[in-house]
């Protein structure tokens, strides 16, 4: 078998593998060759794990040859956002402070994918510790958008999005704290989901915001997304915030008709500031759904204007505490030259190890938690968070899903927003509210504006990923935006 199998979705490669039309080794070698050839242009990978990939591919082929214990992911090459711990493989969070950090243990999702027989290609670039919306906050390299190398892939899971978009892996895992899967998915024309908070174990995921962080798949289409989520979701005894409820077999009910279901359009999301080409793509997607027999209604998320401040306030507060452990005493960077005492080591290590955005957020977060300010900032933000959650509950009581863009614009140019953090924060305006609310949201390609991909997101009820996949899959059955490949 020759040809472009690296561009195929998982479910098609799986068929080729079990039909012995290709081997995982061939696929993996081709994918590695492609990564070495193409990735220097886009820098999606921080680490490529060739040896491990070839070993896992060999094992997958053995498994397929034996005909036993074959899963839909056996032999499929994938990439991991570099905030997900991999035993023996350095895990950097794209930060200088972890540049040489090699974990002693693997995240639960990594073990699950290894057990399923998936093949790890490498670790992908990100905004440092997930703080950013463009991948420009990586301490190592700027990842570029495969659709236009002058533009950003979005963030913070920019490397994971770009690697799937450029066909340098068959799928990847991103991590979504406030749109970090969906926003780059939209910028790079891939499908990705932020599952319900607590659906996927965070054990081994280096925390940014413990109460927002969600690991989610980034794939070529909705069907793949369902397959991967099924493999990584579920209760984990090591993560007390995971749900007990069983994981549905998402991929089995994908083809159920959406006729008669209702889409809600949050009116607060369609105000000034949206790029014309984005808005027209979204309107076109709504018409497509109407043609599929779905009803469309306007709904209100009245507290939307508070989403961004609440999100950033809680993010900074939790992050300031989560990042305290990077102190140079046990792992990672340690700067102790001329240190007089241990406080000196902390200060020097953190001064050198963290980038500006990380420092900015740690300082603001520590401030928001400090005595005298806690009630006015952290506590108030938590109260508004409850209102945001209620907004979604109320809106989703009368409709089956919500539909909105993933971003007000398509991918912007490198350097365009780096000098203005507030402008950068605004690019997340449509994706942040779901994380404080905890609800799931699926991002998928829905068109192009001036040659750059446009993403939309479907937002669903708590733990109802099934409906998102069903509605997303129905769309992809009648459109081919998700099949468009970048010119690289």
């Amino acid at each position: 078998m020759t040809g472009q199998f690296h561009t195929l979705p998982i479910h098609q490669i799986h068929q080729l593998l079990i039909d012995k039309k290709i081997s995982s080794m061939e696929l993996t070698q081709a994918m590695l060759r492609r990564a070495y050839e193409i990735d220097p242009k886009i820098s999606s990978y921080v680490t490529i794990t060739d040896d491990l990939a070839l070993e896992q591919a060999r094992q997958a082929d053995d498994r397929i040859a034996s005909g036993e214990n074959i899963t839909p992911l056996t032999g499929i090459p994938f990439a991991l956002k570099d905030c997900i711990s991999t035993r023996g493989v350095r895990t950097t969070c794209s930060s200088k402070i972890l540049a040489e950090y090699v974990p002693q243990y693997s995240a639960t999702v990594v073990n699950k994918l290894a057990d399923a027989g998936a093949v790890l290609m490498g670790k992908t670039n990100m905004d440092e510790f997930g703080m950013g919306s463009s991948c420009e906050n990586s301490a190592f390299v700027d990842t570029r958008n495969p659709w236009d190398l002058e533009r950003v892939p979005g963030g913070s899971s920019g490397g994971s999005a770009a690697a799937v978009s450029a066909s340098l892996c068959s799928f990847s895992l991103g991590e979504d704290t406030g749109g970090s899967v969906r926003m780059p998915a939209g910028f790079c024309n891939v499908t990705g989901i932020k599952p319900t908070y607590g659906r996927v174990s965070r054990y081994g995921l280096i925390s940014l915001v413990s109460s927002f962080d969600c690991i989610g798949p980034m794939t070529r289409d909705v069907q793949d997304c369902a397959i991967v989520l099924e493999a990584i979701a579920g209760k984990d005894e090591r993560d007390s915030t995971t749900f007990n409820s069983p994981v549905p077999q998402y991929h089995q009910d994908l083809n159920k008709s959406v006729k008669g279901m209702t889409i809600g359009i949050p009116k607060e999301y369609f105000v000034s500031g949206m790029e014309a080409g984005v808005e027209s793509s979204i309107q076109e997607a709504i018409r497509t759904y109407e043609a599929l027999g779905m009803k469309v209604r306007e709904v209100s998320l009245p507290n939307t204007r508070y989403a961004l401040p609440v999100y950033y306030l809680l993010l900074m507060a939790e992050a300031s505490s989560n990042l305290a452990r990077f102190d140079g005493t046990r792992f990672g960077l340690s700067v102790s030259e001329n240190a007089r005492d241990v406080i000196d080591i902390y200060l020097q290590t953190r001064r050198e190890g963290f980038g500006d955005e990380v420092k900015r957020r740690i300082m603001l977060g520590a401030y928001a938690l400090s005595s005298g300010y806690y009630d006015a900032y952290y506590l108030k933000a938590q109260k508004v968070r409850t209102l945001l959650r209620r907004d979604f509950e109320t809106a989703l009581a009368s409709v089956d899903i919500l539909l909105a863009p993933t971003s007000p614009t398509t991918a912007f140019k490198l350097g365009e927003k780096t000098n203005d953090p507030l402008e950068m924060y605004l690019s997340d305006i449509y994706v942040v509210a779901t994380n404080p609310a905890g609800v799931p949201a699926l991002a998928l390609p829905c068109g192009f504006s001036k040659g750059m991909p446009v993403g939309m997101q479907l937002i669903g009820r708590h733990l109802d990923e099934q409906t998102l996949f069903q509605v997303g899959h129905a769309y992809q059955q009648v459109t081919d935006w998700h099949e468009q490949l970048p010119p690289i």
Partner: protein
Amino acid sequence: MTQTYEPVIGLEIHAELLTNSKMFCSCSADYGSAPEPNTLICPVCTGLPGALPVVNKKAVELAALVGLALNCSINPHNTFARKNYYYPDLPKGYQISQYELPIASNGYLDIPGDTENPQRVTVRRVHIEEDTAKLTHEKNHALVDFNRAGVPLLEIVSEPDMRNVEAALSYATRIRAILRYLEVNSGDMEKGVLRFEANISVRPSGSSELRTRTEIKNLNSFRALTRASAYEIERQIKVYEAGGEVVQETLGWDEARGVTVSQRGKEDAHDYRYFPEPDLPPLQLEPAWIASIKSLLPELPDAKTRRFMEQYELKRQEAILLTSEKPLADYFEAVVSKSRSSPKTIHSWIAGEFMRYMNDSELALENIDLPAEKFAQLIDMVTDKTVSGNSGKIVLNEMLKNGGVPQEIVKAKNLAQVSDTGFIQEAIEKILSDNPGEVEQYLAGKETIVQWLMGQVARSTKGKADPNVAKELLVKTMEKRRK
């Protein structure tokens, strides 16, 4: 006229919980038995990136048990919180603790006072947290052992209800006894499983104001608690007497120099930036679960004291002594159940010769191998006058040191008490003829000389003479000489 002052003392007691595993991971909590530093560790208790805590259910049970024993209400909805600060013994840069909603609050403990009326100390809260790593400071660096990091720790916080050092000591002692009664803590202070922190202020006697207080941290023994508190009270009084003001600060206790020392610079002015721990959902404790924990409560020192007073007709102080440790109370009851002698007699034996041996040999009760049955037999032999009280003590010490059966020891050491009047009379005649002066004194009206003469009888008969019989014969013999 000089002003007198009244101390105002509150205690925070940190007690490690006797669980198999640590508070938030499955590592063994038995760090005392670890062969080497950093052997009982994992990603969770060393704070590796991405590791998450999981609550140890057993620790929650034990914490609730302590809360109930201290008459607290158990909060059905309680939460964990992060206490943020930087120190090398704290791997995550925060300690998981409880802040706004602790597991138990609003309890009290009645502490035995000098009088029959106990004093009530309010227990403000009991909360769960994790212990820190152990630092060993060397010349130019420090070594960190994470074996202790994450061991479940209970913090028991009192209101400032104690008005003198004795009350604070009594409260601390009682808390230790209760923790041991509940088998949640070994009480082994030398191993640091129980540590005190005292909040101290002083005010003019009769005043009800609360003045600036200082906190003395890391008091690792009752002796340190009493000495440091007494020192700090005196120090504050001197400050006021000199017209100064007490500064609110954290103090350490310098055992060698016997002074409290300011720890400013290290622990001072901390803003811990507490916030709810997002990695752990709130603990929801069902009423049925709380009830099931309550049913596990054993009889506690107070109730046992009252019962001992009633059931065994003991005085309050006697009962308090016997119930101070559960094994001792159990031992007392075991001896009582095997003996024909009165509980009062058994109390005297235990509180007297038995505990003297324990103190002298520095042995804990569990290390003493004297079956209650044999102790009971010995006491009964004394009660039955088979041996004298003094010989009984000799037998007891022999059994404590080398074991054995009381009857056989009596035989081997020839200690059987004799009420044979002939044998005793013979001894008396000899003593009287050896001590004519004393006989004269007796006859002249100095009756107290009888006691001295009885001592001579006991000595010459090697304690075997029944004292009642001997005394009767002694007096009779001397009276005969009155012309």
